[in-house]
């Protein structure tokens, strides 16, 4: 029997595997996808970005999506027929292999949203069961073990830190960042070098970033990116079983006894362990618990509260862009603009909290980055004229060539809280099965109007920077469209077993040996990408499990 069985090998599961295996415990990790190493990763745009090689085909595994309108009605989408894809990365290390690694910590007020900013009608806002101070040592641990590069600059929303600096210096940046910094200075904004989970020098037995120009969406061929695989799983001897899809957890009234999984060929196996940790990413973790209902837990495993799957959240906000054209630049600036490989790495958090009309609002983060270097979407975008009419022939060739060789797009991404609501949740559809014959997850989607108002506020600030920098064709889109890779909630943690699934240590209230350690525990999401917080919390939970196993 294993000491610990972890379901999912991404940022939520890997820290526990790393800590427990390195402490001498017998750990097994069940991963649905295949294993890839640095040697396997390449920059094949067709395979990675257009044929989705790291996610399951929707014809075999999909979701049912119910999109709610403000009046409470909803439209049902079949993931396969609509192409609406909520998979993020089925491979050892999960989607952390494919992240861009924009690493921001939550801030102290993110842990007490209800207390600080008050209730919001129609939203289920709560304070967290822990404080920033309790998580801070684990944020610090992630900096050192996973590897975070950057430069601390003083700004009004800088969160408290136990280490003065990041362990690794900031990555090299493109000359255009100077234009950005100058624009911010004129506007009175505080430009922040974006911390990245990317090594800027050889360290931690991994190679430095080699500025491949293709970071987000792609696996890292040097190991510089702090994926759960490169940073943690490759540095411990936890047993990893690949192509293992866990479809059910078996339990008695108090304890989980077995995890059942299917191999790629459909053979069923089971694993016994003292402790089980679910970390399959928020939607799939709730789905697994709901699909594991039994006579002791007829509503789903660990679901006596009826809260499993509830209060699913994403990152609210949206994105925008502006274009820099040669006609408005000097030759030196043109050269700076077209230099590829180097990062942009600039963020603004001036409005992480702001006041409007005498009221205090929780705001968010704006990250700035060059448009992704994938060339096919950049070319395809030129296929239409200003009136939206399809072009072809010489006219199209001329437009493509001019746009791609004499201009470049700087984009921004807005991150603000996606308020939890009753109509944003996970369920299962008993009638719709995946290729394994297991009921698929149902994703109920609902955006709160407050999220859009905050996103708009932030986007308008970003637009001012682009204008000041001299960009043209500036536009943005703030919407309730959920970013599938920024998902959390569904198994909230809390003190009260009647209103939460997990206790403050992310152990199920209902069971003695079941933990959920991905982003499912988060009652609110904060206004930054989640990965750093998922890593930190998983290291925290690892400490708890270690103590329990030693007791």
């Amino acid at each position: 029997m294993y000491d610990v069985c972890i379901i999912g090998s991404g940022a939520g599961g890997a820290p526990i595997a790393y800590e427990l295996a390195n402490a001498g415990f017998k750990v097994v990790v069940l991963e649905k996808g295949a294993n890839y190493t640095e040697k396997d990763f390449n920059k094949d745009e067709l395979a990675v970005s257009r044929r989705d090689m790291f996610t399951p085909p929707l014809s075999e595994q999909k979701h049912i999506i119910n999109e709610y309108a403000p009046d409470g009605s909803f439209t049902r989408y079949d993931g396969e027929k609509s192409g609406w894809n909520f998979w993020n990365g089925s491979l050892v290390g999960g989607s952390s292999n494919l992240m861009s690694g924009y690493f921001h910590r939550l801030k102290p007020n993110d842990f007490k949203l209800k207390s600080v900013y008050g209730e919001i009608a129609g939203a289920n806002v709560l304070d967290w069961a822990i404080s920033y101070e309790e998580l801070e040592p684990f944020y610090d641990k992630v900096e050192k073990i996973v590897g975070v590069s950057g430069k601390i600059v003083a700004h009004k929303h800088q969160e408290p830190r136990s280490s003065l600096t990041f362990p690794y210096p900031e990555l090299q940046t493109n000359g255009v960042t100077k234009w950005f910094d100058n624009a911010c200075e004129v506007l009175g904004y505080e430009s922040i070098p974006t911390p990245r989970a990317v090594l800027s020098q050889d360290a931690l037995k991994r190679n430095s970033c080699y500025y491949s120009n293709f970071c987000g969406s792609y696996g890292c061929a040097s190991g510089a990116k702090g994926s759960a695989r490169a940073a943690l799983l490759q540095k411990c001897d936890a047993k990893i079983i690949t192509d293992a899809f866990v479809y059910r957890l078996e339990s008695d009234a108090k304890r989980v006894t077995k995890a059942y999984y299917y191999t790629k060929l459909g053979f069923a196996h089971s694993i016994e362990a003292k402790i089980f940790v679910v970390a399959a990413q928020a939607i799939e973790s709730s789905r697994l618990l709901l699909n594991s209902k039994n006579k002791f837990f007829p509503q789903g495993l660990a679901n006596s509260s009826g809260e499993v799957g509830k209060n699913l959240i994403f990152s609210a906000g949206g994105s925008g862009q502006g274009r820099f054209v040669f006609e408005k630049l000097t030759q030196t600036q043109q050269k700076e603009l077209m230099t590829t490989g180097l990062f942009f790495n600039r963020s603004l958090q001036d409005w992480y909290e702001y006041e409007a009309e005498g009221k205090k609002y929780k705001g968010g983060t704006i990250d700035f980055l060059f448009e992704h270097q994938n060339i096919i979407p950049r070319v395809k975008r030129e296929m239409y004229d200003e009136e939206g009419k399809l072009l072809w022939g010489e006219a199209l060739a001329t437009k493509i060539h001019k746009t791609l060789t004499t201009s470049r797009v700087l984009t921004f991404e807005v991150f603000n809280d996606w308020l939890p609501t009753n109509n944003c949740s996970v369920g299962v559809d008993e009638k719709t099965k995946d290729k394994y014959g297991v009921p698929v997850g149902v994703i109920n989607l609902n955006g709160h109007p407050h999220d859009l108002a905050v996103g708009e506020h932030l986007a308008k600030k970003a637009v001012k920077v682009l204008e000041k920098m001299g960009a043209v064709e500036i536009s943005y889109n703030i919407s309730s469209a959920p970013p599938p890779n920024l998902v959390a909630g569904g198994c909230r943690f809390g003190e009260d077993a009647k209103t939460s699934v997990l206790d403050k240590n992310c152990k199920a209230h209902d069971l003695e040996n079941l933990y959920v350690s991905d982003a499912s525990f988060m009652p609110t999401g904060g206004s930054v990408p989640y990965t750093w917080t998922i890593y930190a919390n998983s290291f925290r939970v690892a400490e708890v499990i270690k103590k329990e196993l030693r007791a």
Partner: protein
Amino acid sequence: MKNRLSRRNFLKSSFLSSSVMVMSGCSLFSITTPQETLRVLEDDLFPKAKALGINTSSYLHIVFHHSRISKAEKTYLKNGVKWLNEEAVKLHKTTYVKLLSTQREEVLQNFAKTAWGEDYLADVMNYLFEAMLGDPIYGGNTKEAGWKWLNFEGGQPRPKERYV
């Protein structure tokens, strides 16, 4: 093994060369193949690709037999060949490939006036750009000609094998 490969090659070639029945009203007017029409259509939509030496037709073989491109998408590509040819028959009483270039341009202009016609042409160009700007290992972007035209350098490391 040899027989299995032959069988696979036969299947690969058969989809692109399968028959597309072109109707004129309720009557069968002619029979063409996706390969025949798409080869000419791609040259008409983006002649620069041919000028650069891009091998779009070999890439179409990959598209029609790719494990991650749905059957519905492949059928759509094939059906569009029928729709385009029927537009050609309606306007000029013959199939698309038999028209003069000015006549084909007229067919395209008419075809693109409908949303579904425009969407189809965009879909064909989507695969054309994949051929032209994907990694050369897929056989379309010969000598990186598509990348060089746009001063683009592919990311490193490059793939060692095709993902199909």
